[in-house]
């Protein structure tokens, strides 16, 4: 039977996933003007990809558990869109035509992602608190 503890595990997986998203947002914002990376070329923004996995990670999402699933960060995807090309012939990273490719980070988009992640994190914490409150009131059954 799915109980309070599985609900907490699921919520905790959501919290971890949103925390990863926050990390990628922070990385994107910090590197918004990084034109040179170790791999060569400008910084490309990162996106976490979430997937649903079963409560017991080895068996997958089970129908007899109502499709209840945890969140897992499958991978962190690099966004390969081309960034903004700015004409700066004196820049050390300028190409042959004098254009510098800046990262494809859009600050507004990142802020929206950050707020979404923050709200989702709060929702997960509220879920866990509610689960705790429910079990506290179950303890009052005997009193």
């Amino acid at each position, binding site marked *: *039977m799915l*109980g309070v503890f599985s609900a907490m595990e699921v919520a905790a997986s959501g919290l971890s996933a949103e925390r990863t998203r926050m990390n990628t947002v922070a990385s994107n914002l910090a590197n918004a003007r990084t034109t040179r990376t170790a791999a060569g070329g400008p910084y490309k923004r990162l996106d976490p990809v979430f997937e649903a996995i079963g409560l017991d990670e080895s068996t997958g999402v089970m129908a007899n558990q109502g499709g209840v699933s945890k969140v897992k960060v499958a991978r962190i995807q690099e966004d390969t869109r081309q960034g903004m090309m700015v004409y700066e012939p004196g820049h050390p990273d300028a190409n042959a035509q004098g254009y510098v490719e800046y990262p494809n980070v859009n600050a507004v988009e990142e802020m929206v992602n950050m707020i979404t992640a923050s709200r989702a994190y709060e929702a997960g914490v509220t879920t866990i608190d509610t689960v705790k409150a429910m*079990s506290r009131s*179950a*303890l009052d*059954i*005997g009193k």
Partner: protein
Amino acid sequence: MLPIDGNGISMLAPHARLELDPTPPVKEVSKADAAGGALFEDLLKNVVGQANDSINNAEAVGKEFAAGTRDDIHGTMLALSKADIELRLVGNIRNKVVDAFYELWRMQI
């Protein structure tokens, strides 16, 4: 609370039907049984048996939860409450029966 037998006698006051013949009240209960009512003795055994089963079940369920094999919080608490109530019921029935017996005992003198 206790069921009335087929002759309309409350199980707690069998003396209400005492006639002038000197047979002790126990025989009255047997007569009531022959008419198709429940024997008080069996009734009490049932209640005590049920309470015992509930208490054993509650202990087992509590032990399972403590061992981590069971996750059901409200089910466990309900089983424990049920056992508690049944135990109190049996205890109070016993008290009432003993009190009734002593009342009878006094009356005979």
